[in-house]
């Protein structure tokens, strides 16, 4: 299962990197602060509370289990 997922991921990534390249001068919209692929700094509290109150954590740039007595 993991091997199959790895292969799918590799093929997908390989094909994506050969997509049409957006040049830096064409990235005006992508550089909009709301287009960032991370959470805002002020979202850190929301992520922190969720990691205390829910069993799942991680894969969101926030806490994933260490540094607190949370789940």
């Amino acid at each position, binding site marked *: 299962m*993991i*091997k199959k*997922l*790895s292969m799918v*991921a*590799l093929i997908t*990534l*390989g094909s*994506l*990197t050969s*997509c*049409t*390249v*957006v*040049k*830096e001068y*064409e*990235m*005006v*919209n*992508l550089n*909009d*602060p*709301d*287009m*960032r*692929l991370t959470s*805002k*700094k*002020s*979202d*850190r*509290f*929301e992520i922190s*509370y*969720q990691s*205390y*109150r*829910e*069993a*799942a*954590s*991680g*894969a*969101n740039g926030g806490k*994933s*289990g*260490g*540094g*607190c*007595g949370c*789940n």
Partner: protein
Amino acid sequence: MKNLFIIPLLLFAVVFANGQDTSSVYKKRVLESLELDILTSYFFQDGDNAAVTGGIGTEELTDFTTDIVVSIPLNDDDVLTIDGGISAYTSASSSNLNPFNKSSEAYDEEAEDGNPDGPVTGSPWVASSGSSKGDLWIHATIGYNHSSDNRNNIYSGHISFASEYDYTSFGFGGGYARLFNDKNTELSFKANVYLDKWSPEYPIEIISYINHGENLNAGLFNGVDILDQNGNVIDKNGTKVWSPINTTLVENKNRNTYSLSVGFSQIISKNAQFSVFLDVIQQEGWLANPMQRVYFGDRDNYYIGNPASIPIYTSKDNKDVFQLADDIERLPSSRTKYPLGARFNYYVNQFIVVRTYYRYYYDNWGVNSHTINLEVPIKIGMRFTLYPSYRYYTQTAADYFAPYETALSTSQFYTSDNDLSAFNSNQYGIGVSYTDIFTGFHIGKLGLKNIDFKYNYYQRNTNFNAGFFSLGFKFVVN
């Protein structure tokens, strides 16, 4: 597990198979000037399933947090970040480590000869005035980032420290990110280690029983009647008496966490980009919370307080009787978590952006979870943006979860912490952001660049709800 570590290695191969970015790049400072973020939040919650009182009782809690983040450009390529904060909370359930209407000092060895005045009572539905009703959590992190001249290689490292009255944490980590394909693609790797330690606090009846040689006429129990399920006072010197099932408490106070993260992001078009990220988290040590009680369904029940309230123990009308714990929660000393997340953002037009997030999570404690988040920033004029958002979360129960009075004493592991139960939740949020890129408002040398405000309402399908406000200010030094 082992195979998962193959993925990062294969991804490394993809990165370098794509060749080196040879384009000459204008070298812009990574961070133009010093930035100061002041972030605050206020959180409140309530529910009916407090873990400290064995899965039944008030979960009322408030928390006020302030963080300050200073980002300092050391030169064109390097940024030092200092991040510190303090969190002050009050918790009704934590206060019920000692739920009784006498301070814990009254039960100390020195005071054990003195009988408390008046009847001793307590309730899982009433916050106690005990010392554990509130605490401070402080944390500090120092981080360092270095970017290569062409900005295609970013190296990072950090150390962290956190402390609260029953818990301390020391952490460190590092990361590497590589941009290629004309910065259309980014691959990143992170590793973090947290070396944490409990200073365990226990339910008062259990620690008093152990500290006083299992004597029901000393400590907490000195001069205090213990009642059976029918409300009758038991003979403390008889054979049918209350006792915790296990007098061995936390043996290994360490709680270590090791995490590896792999992230991949890709620009799809001039208006769309996505990222996927996988974490593998391994935790070792004492993973249960020693404050949290468990009541077994296959053992007799015993109480301290008003016998008339025993039949309504699980009702909020119970204000004056408290059930003695059978044990603290027990959980395996190892846990492996696999969260897999993805984001997709789409720039609709100059007014609207769509931000989406999905996470699948599973761990070897039997928890499976899905998280979906949607946020649609709407720009209003040049300076204001509205942030309506919705989040749906669902999880299955951990293998060891048992609600109040349903765990079995024959089990090796058990918890009545409803955060490990099966539930789903909906979260509705609205935020507003003010941005002034020209920093017209000044406090001394600090120019105000941004203000963020957000309110979220969180509701589970299990009688639990919460709300949180956050407010953030970003200043830059002009």
